[in-house]
């Protein structure tokens, strides 16, 4: 039987505020255990939550960017369950009236564009962390993370393959960083994903029973976890079994999923409106000010790059996948004589290659837009060839100087003096009798051989176009 996979994703995005959603404790990552858990975060008797306005603003920015409806009245509710990393015994979340409702993201499936629906996005507080290293057979609890603002973004079950799920996640990851509402750091848990996965016979319209996969913290693991789970469900059904609705944990070391024990009886969360927090009302002014903070969004930027700069879809896509890269590209373009395609090539191949190799982000590279612009200008004005430029780029990457400094100190200037070049050409031709005969006999392909020889003699400093012309002229004149 042919099976169809149905995937919906719940992404927990940590909002990059200075302080927690309901307390004045810091949200910075990596502090010593419990040093950033204040009296509100550890839920001392008598403490109360006070909402962080910036968390609301960031949620609104997200909603506006995916064309959602912003609920101008939304309600905080308590989700009740016991867990040691949840100090109050309930999580403050939003249930019936979330801040963001509806909206969509468009992904590229490889076979065209596809619209993935967003059901809702709601504000909530993060829990602390359980550390399972052995403390005499006990578990240690660190509440530094407790109370960090989260926006949980829930998609419609619109994805039909792990690849589509990854495309959606990458798109969302790009978007939240563009909006500067989340740092996107998956290792630190700033962007986490739960996947709801089910299968159904091809053509069936009813959804199958789903399982919820938790604890997946990289794009690669999400793909693997979904693939494993789909296979498990299909095997189960084909063997006459049924899928049980449950929460499962992905174990990357074994590449398998297993039921989560702690969630066994947690299905009755007893949500009710939090009496400590009256409904949140956002006026038009608040929403307008959030709208004014919106940057140009990735899709808009990509289309503009194609129209305004004449770039192809692939170049435009790569350049706009990250706001810093797009900004870098435009900064170079503004300062150079080179055209957009040339700049795009340098950013997407050379620079991206080095960044990838060293696992660095563009902001921390030693090459700034001005330096790359200067390098491209030296190609454009004929000072150096494209090939030499790559060597110069490497030196720049290593922090050895700017293009002009390197051209000067390493004497890389292209030979443009035609007398000097003519001497080299004559030399090459005079010691390559055989090849000259071949050329004149009609085998014009050997021109490349002469060019190579000339470039070798000049250590690449000759202008290739000039060399070509000179060679043709000499060979065809017959002297």
């Amino acid at each position, binding site marked *: 039987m042919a099976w169809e996979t149905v995937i919906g994703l719940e992404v927990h995005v940590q909002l990059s*505020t*200075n*302080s927690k959603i309901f*307390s*004045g*404790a*810091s949200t910075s990552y990596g502090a*010593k*255990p*419990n*040093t*950033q*858990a*204040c*009296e509100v975060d*550890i839920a*001392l008797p008598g403490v109360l939550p*006070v*909402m*962080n*306005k*910036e*968390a*609301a603003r960031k949620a609104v920015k997200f909603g506006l960017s995916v064309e959602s409806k912003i609920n101008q009245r939304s309600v*905080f509710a308590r989700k009740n369950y*016991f867990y*040691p990393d949840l100090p109050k015994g309930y999580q403050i979340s939003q249930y019936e009236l979330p801040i963001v409702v509806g909206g969509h993201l468009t992904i590229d499936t490889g076979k065209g564009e596809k619209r993935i629906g967003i059901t809702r996005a709601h504000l909530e507080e993060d829990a602390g962390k*359980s*550390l*399972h290293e052995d*403390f005499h*057979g*006990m*578990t*240690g*609890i*660190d*509440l530094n993370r407790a109370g960090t603002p989260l926006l949980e973004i829930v998609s419609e079950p619109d994805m039909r393959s792990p690849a589509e799920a990854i495309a959606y996640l990458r798109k969302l990851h790009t978007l939240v960083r563009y909006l500067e509402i989340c740092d996107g750091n998956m290792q630190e848990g700033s962007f986490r994903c739960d996947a709801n996965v089910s299968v159904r016979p091809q053509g069936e319209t009813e959804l199958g029973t789903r399982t919820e996969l938790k604890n997946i913290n990289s794009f690669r693991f999400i793909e693997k976890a979904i693939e494993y789970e789909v296979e498990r469900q299909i095997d189960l059904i084909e063997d006459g079994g049924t899928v049980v609705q449950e929460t499962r*944990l992905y174990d990357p070391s074994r590449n398998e999923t297993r039921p*989560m*024990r*702690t969630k066994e*009886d947690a299905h*009755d969360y*007893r949500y009710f*409106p939090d*009496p400590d*927090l*009256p*409904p*949140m*009302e956002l006026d038009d002014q608040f929403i307008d000010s959030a709208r004014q903070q919106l940057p140009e969004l990735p899709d808009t930027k990509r289309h503009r790059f194609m129209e305004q700069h004449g770039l192809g879809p692939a170049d435009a896509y790569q350049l706009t996948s990250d706001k810093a890269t797009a900004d870098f590209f435009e900064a170079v373009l503004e300062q150079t004589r080179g055209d957009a395609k040339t700049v795009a090539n340098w950013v997407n191949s050379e620079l991206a290659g080095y960044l990838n190799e060293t696992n660095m982000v563009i902001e921390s590279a030693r090459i700034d837009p001005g330096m790359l612009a200067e390098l491209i200008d030296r190609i454009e004005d004929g000072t150096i060839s494209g090939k030499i430029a790559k060597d110069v780029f490497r030196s720049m990457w290593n922090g050895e100087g700017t293009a002009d400094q390197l051209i000067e100190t390493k004497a890389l200037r292209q030979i443009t003096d035609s007398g000097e070049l003519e001497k080299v050409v004559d030399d090459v031709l005079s010691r390559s009798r055989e090849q000259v005969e071949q050329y004149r006999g009609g085998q014009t392909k050997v021109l490349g051989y002469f060019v190579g020889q000339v470039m070798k003699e000049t250590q690449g400093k000759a202008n290739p176009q000039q060399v070509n012309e000179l060679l043709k002229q000499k060979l065809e004149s017959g002297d």
Partner: protein
Amino acid sequence: MALDKQTIYKISRLARIHVDKVDIDRYASQLSTILDFVEQMNRIDTDNVAPLSHPQDRVLRMREDSVTEHDRRDDLQSVAPMTENGLYLVPKVIE
């Protein structure tokens, strides 16, 4: 609403309150009596009435995003039943 033993067991587990076997019947009867009492509410028709969660239907006041708390771990953990290296210790959590 008469609550049976099974329901009492379920509630006690949800509420994380252990109830001894010998006490189950007592709880069942007391809680059932209270539920019967509160069910008098049904005498009043509340269709088309909006629920009231907060007196005066107030709206939320929000604070600016600034860090106002500093590390008070030692102070706050001085009242904890069990800690080590700044962590609260609990019986092993199995996920």
